[in-house]
């Protein structure tokens, strides 16, 4: 044999890549799993079982970790107060590594094998979109705490969410940019591999145009990229007054740094995907004066929010973000639905969830509308001194 004949080895590369795509799933089950067969409602006598699918590892790991903390805090409180009608709540958690395929596999497992009464998850819309059809076809209610893409709940009467949707969130930022910041020209930098980011960018572009603004350039990147200088160089040449980057925090932080390195001084605008303490750590001062829309604000004086933040900090030793607050509310709403339904039957739970009205949660008053989305106001936060500071509330 002799050197320089890469052919056959490279063929195997194709196989390698496909192995990467389907690597095995990691599990972290909280509590033991009962292996009973039979009807869902009989499978877990004397307890209520929720299934959680979260990105505990991977790119958006803080989303998963925050969600998991929020869920655990809520479950602990419910159980300490005696459970739901005397039944304790148990949560089975699977990690999806931030991959839609893993999220789908985890959902199937939760429903078919673990026979959970309700599925709670995901944060990322791309993962929720993979999970929703499975919950729907098995007639098990699914409650997403934070997926804002409209298609998550569209046409699926077992799928609910307790946050606002992207058309609203995109409009909020377009309105804020146009009316409060008085900006005419915006460039968009979207993550093409991410349903959430693409959706949000589309709604922003549409509303911003309607309000009389101009989109000077629409660029894209792929989640996980580390170099955005090429896109930003083109954006610099287009001279916008702000850049809309509706991505997730890890990418946004690098985008911000590189924008400043290229001498772009205009503010960046974004959505709830920015909300993570890692954003400020990685971006440093690069995001000073930038704005993003979010589900709630930490510096809200409401006593309910204050007490939640204190409990959260005492339990986990870190400040809560929107994801944990939404997850907390999701479990509380799920528990309320179980209570009103008086049963763990899927159809009854669904009806109870659909009837949620004026639920006073940490993230605001939540009413589920006929499209199974929550109707609630959004806040715009500005970044000052590496912290999000309340800037405005925009009502639906």
């Amino acid at each position, binding site marked *: 044999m*002799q050197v*320089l004949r*890469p052919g056959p080895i490279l063929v195997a590369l194709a196989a*390698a890549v496909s192995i990467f795509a389907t690597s095995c799933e990691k599990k972290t089950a909280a509590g033991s799993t009962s292996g009973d067969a039979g009807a869902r409602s009989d499978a877990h006598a004397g307890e209520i079982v929720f299934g959680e699918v979260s990105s505990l590892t991977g790119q958006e790991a803080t989303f998963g970790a925050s969600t998991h903390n929020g869920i655990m805090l809520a479950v602990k409180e419910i159980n300490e107060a005696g459970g739901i009608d005397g039944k304790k709540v148990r949560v089975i958690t699977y990690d999806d590594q931030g991959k839609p395929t893993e999220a789908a596999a985890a959902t199937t497992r939760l429903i078919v094998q673990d026979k959970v009464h309700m599925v709670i998850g995901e944060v990322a819309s791309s993962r929720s979109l993979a999970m929703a059809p499975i919950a729907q076809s098995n007639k098990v209610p699914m409650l997403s705490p934070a997926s804002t893409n409209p298609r998550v709940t569209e046409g699926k009467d077992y799928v609910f969410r307790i946050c606002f949707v992207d058309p609203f969130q995109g409009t909020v930022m377009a309105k804020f940019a146009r009316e409060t910041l008085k900006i005419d020209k915006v460039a968009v930098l979207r993550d093409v591999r991410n349903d959430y980011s693409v959706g949000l960018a589309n709604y922003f572009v549409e509303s911003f145009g309607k309000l009389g603004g101009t989109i000077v350039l629409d660029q894209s990147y792929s989640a996980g990229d*580390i170099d955005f200088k090429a896109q930003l160089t083109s954006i610099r040449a287009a001279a916008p007054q702000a850049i809309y980057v509706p991505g997730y925090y890890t990418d946004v932080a690098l985008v911000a740094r590189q924008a400043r390195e290229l001498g772009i001084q205009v503010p960046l605008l974004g959505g709830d995907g920015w909300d993570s303490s890692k954003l400020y750590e990685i971006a440093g001062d690069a995001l000073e004066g930038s704005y993003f829309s979010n589900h709630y604000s930490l510096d809200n004086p409401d006593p309910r929010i204050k007490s939640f933040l204190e409990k959260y900090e005492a339990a986990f030793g870190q400040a809560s973000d929107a994801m944990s607050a939404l997850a907390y509310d999701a479990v509380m709403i799920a528990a309320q639905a179980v209570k009103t339904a008086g049963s763990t039957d899927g159809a009854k739970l669904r009806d109870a969830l659909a009837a949620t009205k004026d639920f006073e949660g940490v993230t605001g008053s939540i009413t589920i509308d006929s499209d199974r989305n929550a109707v609630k106001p959004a806040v715009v936060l500005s970044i000052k001194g590496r912290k999000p500071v309340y800037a405005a509330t925009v009502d639906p």
Partner: protein
Amino acid sequence: MTELAQHLINGLSLGSVYALIALGYTLVYGVLQLINFAHAEVFMLGSFAGFYSARWLPMFREEPRFLAILAVAMAACAVVGLAIERVAYRPLRGKPRLNALITAIGVSMLIQSVGQLPFFMGPSPQFFPSLLADGQLLDLGGVSLRKLQAVTFVSAVVLMVGLHRLIFHTRLGTAMRAVSFDARTAALMGIHPDRVIAFTFVLGSALAAAAGILVGMSYPRIEPTMGVMLGLKAFVAAVLGGIGNVKGAMAGGILIGLVEALVVGYGTSSYRDAVAFGILILVLVIKPSGLFGRAVTEKV
């Protein structure tokens, strides 16, 4: 014009990173005909070695501290590379090549997954500290060249030239080339192929560590999965230049960096990765030996 100049600078600095990683692929391939997929993970570990040593090393003068951290990370990765070779690849020598390739993928995924456990690096991205003060080095009518970009480019070129000299102008390099040419005959000439191969891994891994630190400084978000995409791109660069060829890896890396910058600048940014991997397919179809590789007839 300003825009084009800026794109070229961006492309060069990204390309030099690809080139550094590509060197590791090409070195091992040149000697063993093995595509060492775990190389991307060694690169990632290099970043983290820099991250942790920066935490423990007290602040003193910036430049010597940077060099010290670089040395620590390169040493740590050399040990990791050596261990991977000893544990995973050496037992498979003499077996079909596909076995070693699949093992390489396994090692790569193992390091990635173990790295994501909270006990090791943890799943969430970490912030890589700035080891050297960054700032504007040049500003020519709106074309910005950052200090770190220059440092990355210069370090990459220095390491590549050093590597080239080592391979072509030292006894050890001659031994590497001899093993690459024909391991059995080389052994008859008094060369220990195992030792030479181990040394190749040490060298490749140390280069990966250097790349890891340079990437960490310019793009300060490091995470256990950071090697995947960069590793694949570097692999494309190695194939483009002619895998097994050191000069080819350098040229391939810089070419891929430039192509990406120009595709995003003047084409559509969503096709960036597609173009990079499209190049891989084109090279394999049209000129499988790459830009610098020579076609060698197979002797049986």
